């Protein structure tokens, strides 16, 4: 795990196609022990990259999903109040002093660790994924800043807990809100764009084994066109993978107008987008019509499939 080439290889083994720029960013992040802020459109694999990184490093992935209203308590720790109550009740008759009982109640046994506290008490540096940090509010962002700088948490009843091992931090953002300058400066930054046509074909083959070459090409080409349309929700890589699986399960080895109609739900998730696509159908037609299958009325095409359903294509 020292250089970008190795990282790429390890990621590829786990069916994550990382380009050189992204792999180098990960390498720098690991070497500098700095958080990495990944921005990009939805569904390009920001979250997935953190999962794969944890796998590759052989450590735990601790995920903090951000949402509006997320506060420090929910991210750090809470006391297990019902359990404390129960314990207090049960130990009433023991005759121990108030101080002793208090110390028992406020011990680590009754502490519910939330992701941030958990990440600094791990025995081995985990990967801490702070997902969709743009959805949390600015107050939380300020708290996060402090956390990323200090790597310690003070619990009044227990004292200060310092990180034994700094976690590898990955933050993701969909740019629904502009992040503060301070947070940006604390992090390394990488922009993860939609994959290019070739990259997407590569990803499809890596993630959906047995996908016909021609189908992969058609899906990727159509995705390139769709992402250029003024859609409410442009399809990401996740959508193309879903779509490929759906088409495979329908035993399709190519895309025609009918197959597109049947499986459109995998690609366009907002009803209004269907109208947008229909308005631009001329842009899609060359891809669909380019398939020999469309002309041969559903016959198996020779170059991809010898009538055995599908052929596995070599990974590139």
């Amino acid at each position, binding site marked *: 795990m020292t*250089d970008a080439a190795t990282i790429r290889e390890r990621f590829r083994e786990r069916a994550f196609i990382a380009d050189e720029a992204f792999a180098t960013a990960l390498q720098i992040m690991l070497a500098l022990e700095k958080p990495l802020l990944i921005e990009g459109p939805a569904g390009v694999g920001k979250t997935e990259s953190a999962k794969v990184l944890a796998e590759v490093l052989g450590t735990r992935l601790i995920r903090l999903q951000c949402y509006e209203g997320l506060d420090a308590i929910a991210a750090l720790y809470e006391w297990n109040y019902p359990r404390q109550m129960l314990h207090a009740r049960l130990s009433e008759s023991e005759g121990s002093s108030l101080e002793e009982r208090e110390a028992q109640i406020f011990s680590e046994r009754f502490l519910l660790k939330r992701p941030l506290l958990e990440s600094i008490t791990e025995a081995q540096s985990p990967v801490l994924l702070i997902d969709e940090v743009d959805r949390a509010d600015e107050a939380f962002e300020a708290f996060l800043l402090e956390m990323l700088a200090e790597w310690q948490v003070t619990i009044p009843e227990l004292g200060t807990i310092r990180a034994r091992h700094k976690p590898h931090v990955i933050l993701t953002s969909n740019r629904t809100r502009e992040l503060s300058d301070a947070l940006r400066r604390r992090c390394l930054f990488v922009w993860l764009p939609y994959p290019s046509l070739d990259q997407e074909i590569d990803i499809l083959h890596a993630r959906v084994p047995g996908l016909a070459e021609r189908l992969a090409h058609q899906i990727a080409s159509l995705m390139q066109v769709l992402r250029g349309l003024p859609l409410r929700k442009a399809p990401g890589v996740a959508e193309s993978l879903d779509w490929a699986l759906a088409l495979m399960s329908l035993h399709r080895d190519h895309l025609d107008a009918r197959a597109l109609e049947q499986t459109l739900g995998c690609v366009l998730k907002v009803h209004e987008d269907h109208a947008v696509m229909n308005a631009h159908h001329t842009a899609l037609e060359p891809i669909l019509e380019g398939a020999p299958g469309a002309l041969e009325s559903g016959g198996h095409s020779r170059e991809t499939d010898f009538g055995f359903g599908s052929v596995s294509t070599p990974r590139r």
Partner: protein
Amino acid sequence: MYPFASLPENLIAFCAVLRRDHGFRIGPGELHDAARALEVVDLSDEHAVRHALRPTLSGTLHDATVFDQAFADFFFPRPFGDRHDQRPSVRRDPESDAVSSEERFEQERRARSPVDADAVDVAPEAPDGPIAPLETTDSDLEEAAPLAHDEFNLEYLAEVLTQYGQPPRIVGAPEAVIPAAQLLPEFPAEMVDALTAGQIRNGRDFRVSPFQVRPSGRFVKAVTPEGQLVAIGEARLPHLYHPVLVL
């Protein structure tokens, strides 16, 4: 091959360019990170260096988008004659009746230097565009001293331009001379001391202050403190100019 001798110097200069020209917000922290990032990648691999610097120096999508071009411009400035792709937009514009003095100078330089014979063959696109009348005013002529070593001969310039089928409209007597320092107002002037001036006359490359001359500028005038033009330098590297015309 890089603008400065040492890696830290190059990095600092590059960061200064990113800050000044592209609005990057780079502080000492980012600079430090960038230097550390360079320690972990293969420095002989241009891509690796680029990919290592991008995440450390850029903070927003805009930064990341313009980074590659800025990197190429700084570390691999465009070689000679590679500007054809940019030029037509200027030339074909019928509205513009002014060709920058940078281009005028370029044409002249090509015509003069025999090694650039190929370039002259390419040049026929030149007549397409109008060449601006030389902006020689009477006051210029009045100021003009008798032929000195730092002055262009207008007659000669006219001859060169005529080769492109566009004889310049010269106001005043054809044998008039004007101070060269005023002839090319678009070239930034870099003040050089007597010692450097001597070296430049002997063909040595010269450096210009990075705070005065933008690295994108192709030509600069080297001028003595007294205002005498020593040479015209062409960018070899950012801030490093080679005298192509010594006067």
